[in-house]
């Protein structure tokens, strides 16, 4: 963000640099930074420190700003009583598989639609994009019925990670994003590879994929966060305590667990996505705005 070289916006730079404009600008900036910090970081601070308070302290009026007698025991209890290690491992396992399945199958499909152009390719793409218009809640019941008794095969996928992995492959947003990126790769490169006798798979592997790292990164990050944030679908298809995801596990325990322990568990469950965000924030934000379609 160059300080002054940006394009002209609502208010001209000159106006913001002179006398009254400058004073207003700096006042407003200070106020906004303070208010945003309070509004968006404040609750997180409250969450992390609140979970450190004892049962009596959290019920105290007025609430204390700092935990008077920090109880790391709440976090330890959350970790042990809810078996968070197991829940986090499950979620991590589902997220990794989701990334792999989406990268392999969605990339192959987008490559085919963009470069190999099979017959009916456009019709198939249209049918895929049409699913973006169907709200997830409308499909939840028939999808569940399908998963407990797969058509033709008659396999029950309950408690199987495939019940999370395979439906996530049917992600028109990913295919759209990938296809648009592949469309921007010049045909000449493809033609050159063909002349050199490269098979389509070889071309994808050696030419297209190395050029597509940024978009593959975006798809992977979205896949991980989608699994980490999802709630209802994993709740339905992973019913046993051994296969639950972390959000579902915390929800299942929330009824009979002291609230500070539940919040401590919520903090731990949120750490992975927050860390991913802080590391990859540039990729995430650019991916969001290039796609700008996700509902």
């Amino acid at each position, binding site marked *: 963000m160059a300080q002054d070289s940006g394009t002209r916006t609502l208010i001209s730079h000159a106006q913001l640099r002179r006398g009254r404009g400058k004073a207003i600008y700096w006042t407003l900036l200070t106020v906004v930074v303070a208010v945003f910090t309070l509004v968006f970081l404040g609750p997180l601070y409250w969450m992390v420190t609140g979970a450190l308070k004892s049962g009596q302290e959290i019920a105290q009026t007025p609430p204390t700003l700092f935990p008077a007698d920090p109880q790391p025991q709440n976090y330890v209890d959350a970790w042990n009583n809810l078996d968070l290690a197991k829940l986090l491992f499950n979620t991590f396992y589902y997220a990794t598989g989701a990334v792999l399945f989406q990268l392999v199958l969605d990339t192959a499909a987008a490559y085919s639609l963009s470069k190999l152009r099979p017959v009916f390719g456009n019709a198939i793409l249209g049918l895929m994009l049409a699913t973006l218009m169907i709200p997830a809640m409308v499909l939840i019941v028939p999808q*569940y019925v399908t998963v407990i008794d797969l058509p033709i095969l008659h396999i029950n996928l309950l408690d199987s990670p495939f019940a999370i992995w395979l439906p996530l492959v049917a992600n028109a947003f990913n295919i759209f994003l990938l296809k648009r990126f592949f469309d921007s790769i010049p045909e000449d490169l493809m033609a050159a590879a063909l002349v050199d006798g490269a098979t389509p798979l070889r071309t994808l592997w050696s030419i297209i994929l190395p050029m597509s790292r940024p978009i593959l990164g975006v798809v992977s990050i979205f896949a991980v966060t989608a699994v980490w944030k999802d709630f209802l679908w994993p709740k339905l298809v992973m019913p046993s305590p051994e296969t639950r995801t972390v959000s579902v596990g915390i929800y299942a325990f929330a009824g009979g667990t002291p609230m500070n322990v539940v919040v401590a568990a919520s903090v731990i469950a949120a750490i992975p996505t927050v860390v991913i965000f802080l590391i990859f924030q540039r990729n995430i934000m650019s991916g969001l705005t290039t796609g700008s379609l996700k509902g």
Partner: protein
Amino acid sequence: MAITTAPGSVREAPRPASPARPARTGLGRKVRDNLTGHAFLIGAVLCFAVFSWYPMIRGIVMSFQRTRRGVTSWVGWDNYIRIVNDPSFWTAWKNTFYFTVLALVVGYVVPFFVAILLNEFRHARGYLRILVYLPVMLPPASALFLFKFYAYDPSEAGLFNAILKALHLPTSQWMQSPEMTMPAMVLASTWMNMGSAVLIYLAALQNIPGELYEAAELDGAGIWRRIVNVTIPQTRLILLLLAMLQIVATMQLFIEPLILANGAGAEDSATSVAYLIYQHGFFQNDLNGAAALGVIMLVVLAGFSAAYARLTAKQD
């Protein structure tokens, strides 16, 4: 594929060989390419077929059937009649519409003006963006437990009540008061979700040519007039698209009532259509009724989509 000649000669003359191998020319070549193309496509297409396209049709079929003791039979509109007569049906729609409208007023207008404000700043831009987007990255269940236990605590030990008390404002019962249930859910939901809208608006704002603002200013247009006459028309398509996406998302209100209000909430004030689908499908052993309610929801949302398509098509 039995080419024994050197690669060079194949490249020079692939076609003259055609009398012996007609498959190498025109159509044959195309079929081979298509086979590869389809092979690459098949995995994703199967997933779409099994988990998207088929369930869509199955949902409609199921809504006209009833399965009892393993026997499935056609029952016409029975499921629809039963679901409409559920005592919570109209309450759920009323609540869902109320949430959608309130979320539109708060969660749609606020991010736009936040984006306009952020776009004017030359400092702390990265920091402010990260702050706004941070809640989007939290698992919703985590964020909602924070709201449920700490922010919406109805005693004066709760965060919001403590703030209200410090400001000498009346405190609230939050989720235990039927009047406050919806505003409280909108507040939590907006806090969790507004980040993506802000970032999308910011990207759209950066595409507005600066000359337009300059010209407007020369014509004597003040800040508000510039927003109305330049910013809004220039971002109209994105504004409409996000309105549409937000309506579709908020109409599916589910996890907020489930976690904040334990489902129905005080005096049924939190029951949403999606929650009713969940109740019928997974607690009342009425998957067919739930499918019928899903189809009703699809029709209502298709109505919104049609209105959106008309709105965007008219002026282009």
